[in-house]
């Protein structure tokens, strides 16, 4: 069965504090326990309390990648600030809206979708229960509609609310039951999700996945400053990294974070930081220092809407330019992007390994969509002994020349990097241009030699087939990167089913550009669609700079915070090929 055959897209909304996100998390966990896959995206306002919040779910018996084009159901606990997320929840005449009859004034922006509205007295029902909660009544309603087993739901409620005490759990269960028992005269267009699996699955967010990948890669030191939407990555890491012999420090700012990471990595401990756009801007100079002084490190950037403070709580792919070109001078480094949740683990792990091998910073471009969504995914393949792969750095334990040649130029262009504590190998790492011993130098030949060396270590390295995920073949191709790859792959599946096969090339390694490899993949392609979530076509311009593209190229570039959906990509491809798909 394809993922296209039956998926349910549900939105649960309410003002901040209404418990919409809690319902979303619980519903995802209940669905997962009953053998389903799914995702839950979060769209919240900037306020801590009282703003808008929306849990956006898509459930299926098959693995789900990104969001669908439309929603089957919207459950709204109230309509405060509904205009702020209305565009993110596309409804149509086949959709259902469940509204609390206590908040009957449904905004026009919602009503104009033509969706059918059902009023249910949620607040009144909650008032009839001691400690009753509207959101748990809503959860009961949804579980009944989706025909999810109620004993599983009760288990999830109990475990989620374990710390709240027995009275709260009892009230939640009573509320849940009231919702589940509510006599409804309506059904979802595609009611029960059949075909649940017993296969091993994980319930994980992209931020957790990047953090896990970093630990698997060998990261044992983290310094970082809180920033939305990267904070929960750090909050997952902090209590765990210290249990495996590492440490995480909350620094005074991002300037300190990146420089602490540089210091720790200079000391030989595999190190990283995580941040988002504004923090990446502040780290730009430090990343340049790590490039010049050849210090391995990883920066996970969970991209949010920019520029400036932008939209901290919502997603965009608009930090590509700064990740690629954020340094002054000629500053070759690594830029990688995960394409889905399990790839957050793999790509971050690979980034750590590449940084260590190549002695240079690696920027991992995740985004708010990947980072803060929870996904139920097939359990990833276990990684063999993570601790054994932490030592990829070329370390020299004894000096072969005096003074020690830290920046020795050799065939691989990767020099030995002695760790402090090694006798006879002491050197001063420097952001000043230097000779092969690290001595500051402004001599042209030293500059040229070291520029060549820092470039060559990246261009001479064989990155293998992981630079991209390539699927399908034929003269029509879609080129994408990062989180929008998920919608692209689903679009490709829909097109395949309608007899229009397309090739998909999703680039994982953005820098250094893999020109020969991509051009090989584009050899037989005559029509190309480029998909990205940015306003100024950053990805397309990057492609134009580094690769020879087919004559006919169409760009589908849309800024955040609206998700790129499979249907939009199918339409864009239709426009490109000029025929009905």
């Amino acid at each position: 069965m394809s993922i296209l055959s039956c998926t349910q897209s549900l939105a649960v909304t309410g003002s901040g504090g209404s418990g919409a996100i809690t319902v979303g998390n619980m519903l995802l966990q209940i669905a997962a326990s009953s053998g389903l896959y799914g995702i839950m995206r979060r769209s919240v306002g900037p306020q801590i309390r009282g703003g808008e919040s929306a849990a956006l779910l898509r459930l299926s018996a098959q693995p789900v990648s990104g969001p669908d084009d439309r929603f089957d159901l919207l459950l709204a606990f109230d309509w405060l600030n509904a205009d702020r997320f209305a565009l993110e929840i596309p409804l149509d005449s086949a959709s259902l809206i469940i509204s609390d009859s206590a908040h009957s004034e449904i905004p026009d922006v919602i009503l104009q979708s033509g969706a059918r509205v059902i009023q249910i007295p949620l607040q009144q029902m909650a008032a009839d229960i001691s400690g009753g909660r509207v959101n748990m009544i809503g959860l009961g309603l949804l579980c009944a509609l989706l025909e999810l087993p109620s004993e599983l739901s009760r288990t999830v409620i109990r475990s989620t609310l374990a710390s709240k005490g027995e009275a709260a759990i009892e009230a939640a269960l009573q509320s849940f039951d009231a919702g589940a028992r509510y006599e409804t005269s309506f059904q979802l267009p595609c009611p029960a999700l059949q075909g649940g699996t017993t296969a091993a699955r994980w319930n994980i967010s992209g931020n957790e996945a990047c953090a896990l990948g970093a630990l698997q890669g060998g990261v044992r030191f983290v310094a970082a400053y809180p920033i939305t939407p990267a904070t929960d990555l750090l909050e997952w890491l902090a209590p765990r990294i210290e249990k495996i012999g590492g440490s995480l420090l909350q620094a005074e700012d991002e300037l300190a974070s990146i420089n602490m990471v540089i210091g720790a990595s200079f000391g030989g401990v595999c190190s990283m930081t995580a941040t988002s756009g504004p923090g990446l801007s502040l780290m730009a100079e430090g990343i340049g220092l790590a490039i010049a002084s050849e210090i391995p490190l990883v920066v996970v950037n969970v991209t949010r809407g920019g520029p400036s403070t932008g939209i901290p709580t919502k997603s965009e792919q608009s930090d590509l330019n700064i990740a690629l070109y954020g340094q002054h001078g000629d500053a070759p480094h690594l830029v990688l992007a995960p394409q889905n949740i399990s790839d957050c683990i793999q790509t971050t792990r690979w980034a750590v390994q590449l940084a260590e091998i190549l002695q240079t910073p690696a920027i991992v471009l995740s985004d708010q969509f990947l980072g803060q969504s929870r996904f139920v995914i097939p359990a990833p393949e276990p990684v063999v002994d993570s601790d054994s792969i932490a030592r990829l750095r070329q370390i020299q334990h004894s000096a072969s020349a005096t003074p020690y040649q830290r920046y020795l130029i050799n065939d691989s262009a990767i020099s030995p990097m002695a760790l402090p504590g090694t006798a006879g190998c002491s050197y001063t790492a420097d952001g000043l241009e230097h000779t092969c011993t690290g001595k500051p130098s402004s001599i042209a030949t030293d500059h040229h030699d070291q520029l060549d060396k820092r470039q060559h270590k990246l261009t001479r390295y064989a990155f293998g087939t992981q630079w991209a995920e390539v699927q399908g073949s034929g003269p029509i191709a879609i080129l994408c990167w990062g989180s929008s790859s998920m919608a692209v792959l689903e679009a490709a599946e829909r097109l395949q089913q309608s007899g229009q096969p397309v090739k998909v090339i999703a680039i994982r390694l953005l820098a250094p550009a893999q020109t020969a490899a991509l051009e090989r993949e584009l050899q037989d392609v005559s029509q190309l669609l480029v998909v990205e979530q940015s306003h100024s076509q950053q990805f397309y311009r990057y492609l134009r700079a580094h690769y020879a593209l087919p004559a006919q190229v169409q760009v589908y570039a849309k800024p955040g915070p609206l998700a790129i959906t499979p249907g939009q990509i199918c339409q864009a491809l239709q426009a490109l090929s000029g025929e009905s798909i």
Partner: protein
Amino acid sequence: MNDLAKAKTYKSEVKPIWCPGCGDFAVLSALTKAFAYLDLDKKDLAVISGIGCSSRLPAYLSSYGFHGIHGRALPVAAGLKLARPELTVIASGGDGDGFSIGGNHFLHACRRNLDLTYIVMDNEVYGMTKGQASPTTKPDWVDSPLTPHGTGVRPFQPAAIALAAGASFIARGFSGDPNGMTKLIIDAIQHPGFAFIQVLSPCPTYRPEQKLWKNQVSSFPHAPTDNPLEAATRLYADDGMSSGLIFQSQYPAWQQTSAVTASIHQFEEEFIV
């Protein structure tokens, strides 16, 4: 090997770029004497700096070193110390690097109290960019075309600010008193926590009037105290031109405790549905 010969082994072959008469030569020399006195193994020693004349110092030593970017010596030093607590880590730099562009790190390094030594060579001027006012420059100094009317801003008070920010070792040294400075550096390295030394280090090129400091600097007229209130009173009564150990307190040095009590595999199990 006599002490002087031993001290010399901590110097590298790189020739300093400093001007003749620069106070930083004496700081370099005092550092190496302190290392010799403490018999530090230079493989276990790292000196970290930012940008400026005085920040060139690590290259002139035969220990491990890091010459980073402007203002960020302390975070690099902190990261290294956290990663490798067994190393002796010293951060050094100038007044612009430490108190202006790196001011925030200075505050937080004082309160974090990692076991580091921070030596600031203070000459009240930006030398490398050819003579602009620094945070410690007097408000009526008009010799820089960048501030033709003087800064008009009260100078930064390094020792008082370090005290307020929670530093556990605060001293002031003078490059014209190499023996006193060596002693302070020894005490600072031995201090189990963040040790801050402001060294009055004249710039003969852009602040030639500082050549007179040798007649102006006196000994700090009090024995060191561990009472912050007393230290504050003394510092506010002081003209900033006295040298000695001002404040030392045994706040516990901050360190991260981590022991292996779990495996990554256990974290993975948390995700299983």
